[in-house]
């Protein structure tokens, strides 16, 4: 097992363990902390795969944006923090079916995708930020613009809903 594998499995175990903590924990804020570590584990794997820009964006968006929003929402909602969440199993058979279905789909996608693999001997670190920037401004300009319009619409919608009462 090379050093690469060791680090990969360490990060993978870290990600999965904190994801499990998030699911099992009865306290919603503890779950949020589990989510934080899980995001970090994924960011670590991105770094390991030389996707530096993606790793930083993962931290910036998920930790700096979504997780803070989540915690903020939890704390602004009255008494939600003191409610013990139920973490038992309710619908065992449908849950197993749904999870198995998702697993099959993911497995098939992973197996059928033609991954852009570089032989280990030729692998070297190439900064990705510049390439991603060029691609977003050339080949993927229309999806990029559509997503930005969608986000703007969501923002305006959220502001509209929030202001309805006053």
């Amino acid at each position, binding site marked *: 097992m090379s*050093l690469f594998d060791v680090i990969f499995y360490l990060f993978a175990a870290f990600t999965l363990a904190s994801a499990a903590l998030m699911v099992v924990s009865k*306290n919603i*804020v*503890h779950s949020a*902390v589990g989510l*934080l570590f899980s995001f970090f584990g994924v960011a670590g794997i991105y770094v390991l795969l030389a996707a*530096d*820009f993606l790793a*930083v*964006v993962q*931290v*910036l968006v998920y*930790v*700096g*944006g979504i*997780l*803070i929003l989540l*915690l*903020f929402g939890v*704390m*602004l909602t009255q008494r939600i*923090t003191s409610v013990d969440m139920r973490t038992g199993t309710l619908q065992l058979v449908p849950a197993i079916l749904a999870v198995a279905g998702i697993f099959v789909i993911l497995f098939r996608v992973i197996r059928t995708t033609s991954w852009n693999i570089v032989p280990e001997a030729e692998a070297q670190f190439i*900064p990705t*930020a510049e390439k991603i920037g060029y691609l977003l401004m050339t080949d993927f300009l229309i999806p990029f613009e559509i997503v930005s319009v969608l986000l703007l619409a969501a923002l305006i919608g959220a502001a509209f809903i929030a202001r309805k009462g006053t």
Partner: protein
Amino acid sequence: MRELITTLANGQTFLANLPEVVLNIIFISLGAVVLTTVCAVLALVGVYMERKVSAHIQDRVGPMYVGGFHGWLQTAADALKLLLKEDIVPALADKKLHFFAPILVFGATLATFAVLPFGRHYVMSDMNIGILYILAISSLVVIGTILAGWASNNKWSLLGAMRSAAQVVSFEIPASLAILVIIMAVGSMNLGEIVNVQVGGIHKWLIWKFFPFNLLAFIIYFIATLAETNRAPFDLPEAESEIVAGFHTEYSGFKWAAFFLAEYANMFMVGVVGATLFLGGWSSPFGDFMNSGPFQIFWIFAKAFGLIFVQIWIRWTLPRVRVDQLMYTSWKVLTPFAFVAIIGVGFYMIL
């Protein structure tokens, strides 16, 4: 850093026999130890400076006895006292998170030091997206603050934490937009390259480029980071006349010291980033004069402490703003002006 490792590995020392992985681990650990020490010492210097500057602004003298000359050992003695103090955890606090929050805040602040360029060769990790990394990691500080406020199980703490989160998240936007102006002007997110285009004297500093838009960006960056580090006049998260001490009300001893260290380390960090982006970083303001290795460290520290001095000066000059004024400043003043700066620089670059 990388050059240092290869030089030592190729040299005739006993280190040459070790595999590169081991060397990397040794140097990364060493670097982390050095940066932690530097960070702690800087925080002590920052606290001492704050006390002296505020004292002189208010026509007092500040600490004068400990250590002899102008009380220079006062903050070190304070730190020692904090280490020896009893660690009090409220009975109904969430013990694990109460313990974890200061570690997260201090750890995240320290992690940003890894990419700060203290000189052409004095940088731990010269990564090509350094400035983006700083933006990402510093958002962790907010999570630490929220957790601290929540885990304390105290109304003041929770109020302070929520104020802090709202404030930092809002002011991150104008700060990032101001940084974007520099990224546009240089065409790189690497802090080393951003300094490299500014080498050669005070007239090459990016603050003068694309006049007046970069100057505007610098002012926006400075105000926004003032709010991000919870400094007066934006110190609502710890407004002592309203909510006791905000998110660290229930902290004592070393955990409280960790918050305090993180605050001053954060001030230094935004000072270094501000100096790097706008004021030439480690390069000398006099061209080649005094621009060799050790002087670069001197220049970056001088510029960063200059910015910290202005931060302290503002703190003891302006009264605290209200929450609505705070949000007004961020969303209706700084953010539109930041967009103006970006569009202005864009026009300059196209024309």
